């Protein structure tokens, strides 16, 4: 096929830069060339956008870089905002035993009261609680409830342990509750050690319930034991 002599004329045409003769020739050509017509159509809106900008702005030098203080200031504000917003979020080191005890005092809204035996979790979480699905065999079952709060959402979790150590806290490391948001980021919401029989905890997070895609309960190694897709797939998954 013969190359189109007007193949790159559409740009100069829409800018009005062709000479009167060239312009006339190109317009004649447009009648018979669908490709050039669609090219003109594609570029036709650009002069309008260019007209919004003054020549001096186009010729202006590259703008200066932001000051060095910008990023440190931002990160400081991020840390401050997070401290204020997360009331229950625990991400502290488990090495600090004293710290962990303080944490448990906050997390255990309802202290362990189960028998330590098997069976479904007792309905400590009353409304719209969903049973979490077992991903791999483990000694824990849980239900979760998600509700909205002004700053994000709140998760009420109720765990029942089938092999709880009699007499209270184990020395084993903690379970962790994580939330994956729909942008793929995983947030650690809470960490705790297993209690005798049952744990109920309430955690606030800055992710809104609309943005939650998955709630996961992990063991000490970070392996997911239970999960709940959010929003739950069907009403039948509802645990009453």
């Amino acid at each position, binding site marked *: 096929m013969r190359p189109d002599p007007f193949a790159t004329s559409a*740009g100069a045409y829409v800018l009005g830069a*062709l000479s009167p003769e060239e312009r006339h020739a190109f317009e004649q050509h447009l009648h018979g060339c669908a490709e050039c017509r669609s090219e003109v159509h594609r570029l036709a809106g650009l*002069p309008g956008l260019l007209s919004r900008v003054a*020549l001096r702005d186009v010729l202006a030098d590259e703008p*200066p870089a932001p000051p060095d203080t910008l990023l440190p200031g931002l990160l400081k504000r991020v840390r401050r905002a997070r401290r204020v917003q997360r009331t229950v979020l625990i991400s502290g080191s488990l090495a600090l035993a004293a710290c962990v005890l303080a944490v448990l005092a906050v997390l255990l809204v309802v202290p362990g009261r189960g028998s330590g035996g098997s069976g479904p979790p007792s309905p400590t979480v009353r409304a719209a609680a969903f049973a979490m699905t077992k991903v791999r065999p483990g000694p824990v079952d849980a239900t979760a409830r998600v509700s909205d709060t002004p700053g994000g959402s709140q998760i009420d979790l109720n765990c029942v342990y089938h092999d709880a150590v009699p007499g209270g806290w184990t020395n084993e490391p903690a379970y962790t509750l994580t939330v994956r948001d729909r942008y793929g980021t995983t947030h650690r919401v809470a960490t705790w050690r297993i209690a005798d029989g049952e744990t109920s905890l309430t955690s606030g997070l800055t992710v809104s319930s609309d943005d939650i895609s998955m709630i996961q309960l992990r063991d000490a190694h970070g392996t997911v034991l239970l999960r709940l897709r959010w929003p739950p797939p069907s009403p039948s998954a509802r645990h009453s």
Partner: protein
Amino acid sequence: MDDEVELMRALHDEHAHALWAYVVRLTGGDHQLAEEVVQESLLRAWRNPRVLDQSVRPARAWLFTVARRIVIDHWRARSSRPESVSAEPPEIAVADGTDEAVQSWLVIEALRKLSLEHRAVLVECYYLGNSVAEAARRLQVPEGTVKSRTHYALRSLRLILEEMGVSE
């Protein structure tokens, strides 16, 4: 390690430079105010991760719009005080969404992303109103080169603007 700090760092790396340039201009060169406005805009994006979902709306346009509103609010607050009654914001009207002032700035940003050759032909053939023949003389390249550069310059400009969410 720390997802949220990393998110902010990423936001900063991607947008701070462009946002800074825009806001410095909006504030008439008041660097102290500009820094506050840029920080506040990025913090708002960080608090609303949904903004960053580029499939819904390009984050850059959102950030520019937010920054512009903050500056305008600042101007309004100032001009309600007696000592600076004369201080008037350059333009007050803010529509929902990406308003025209923000779009103009996005066009400037898009033009900056073009190669020097591409920008030069647009300056010649559009802003200076020169014909292809005149531009060819001034740039010392053949007329055919001016035509094809103009053509490809507009094509890339269109792509860049589409990515930024600017519609004609």
